[in-house]
């Protein structure tokens, strides 16, 4: 069962997935992610604090699932920044989906700065027990 999950996140680095939509000057942030597998689905949880819900997009193309989001930061010259650790820029991360994911049923929710993607497994591929008669 654990082996199936590896295919979901074969390549998780998204830096090379930058396309024309992301400005070349913007910093690309690869959000931290947890990947969890249950008997019925995979769960992806991505830390994307400060991203506006409207600005988050989840796109699927072929085997890849791309998550994008942008943070809004104040650009006020009348303030003095005492220290700055929060990175501002564009969130971008790409995942490769395994064949067992039912692409039609993927759900996404954004709450408290965390994007949760639920990737249900295909019914036909779910483990099932066969009764011995």
């Amino acid at each position, binding site marked *: 069962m654990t082996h199936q999950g590896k295919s979901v996140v074969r390549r998780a680095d998204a830096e090379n997935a930058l396309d024309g939509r992301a400005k070349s000057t913007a910093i690309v942030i690869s959000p931290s992610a947890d990947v*969890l597998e249950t008997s019925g689905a995979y*769960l992806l949880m991505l830390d994307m604090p400060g991203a506006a819900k409207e600005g988050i997009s989840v796109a699927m193309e072929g085997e890849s699932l791309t998550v994008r989001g942008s943070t809004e930061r104040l650009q006020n010259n009348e303030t003095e*920044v*005492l*220290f700055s650790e929060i990175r501002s820029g564009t969130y971008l991360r790409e995942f490769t989906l395994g064949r067992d994911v039912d692409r039609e049923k993927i759900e996404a929710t954004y709450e408290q*700065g965390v994007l949760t993607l639920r990737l249900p497994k295909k019914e036909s591929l779910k483990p099932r027990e066969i009764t011995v008669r």
Partner: protein
Amino acid sequence: MALIRWSRGQDLPAFPSGMVNMQREINRMFDSFFRTGWHADSDLEPSAWSPATDVVEHDNEFVVKVELPGLSKEDVKVTFQDSVLTVRGEKRQENEEKESNYHRVERSYGAFQRCFTLGQSVRGDKIDASFKDGILTITVPKAEEAKEKQIDIKVR
């Protein structure tokens, strides 16, 4: 400048230059490498992780922003005592579904604490905190006497 006790070595100015960003990136890489164990963020208690923070000074107030994705206001406690603003809390690894395997855990969990010593006199009773999209914003108004006043001096 009114903040002291800052030890992560990341106090780089927020210049929009690529070089500084690169420097920050490198610092962060080293930081995240060394931060895997118990990390003493303050003199008081060790923290399991240290949320990224911005502090900005306005004319009338300081604004502290702390990145706390996945936490709700019930998980966070903000206190102010003896000029020290403390943000503490705990992020628990919640698992609703019983039979599950983790394939990848990159997000930070556990207790954290960050302290900020405010050297300038502030109005402790007027500190306000709000939570939105995983970012805790704390507004600390300056006391009247601490506001910089411009005085025009007549040249005779």
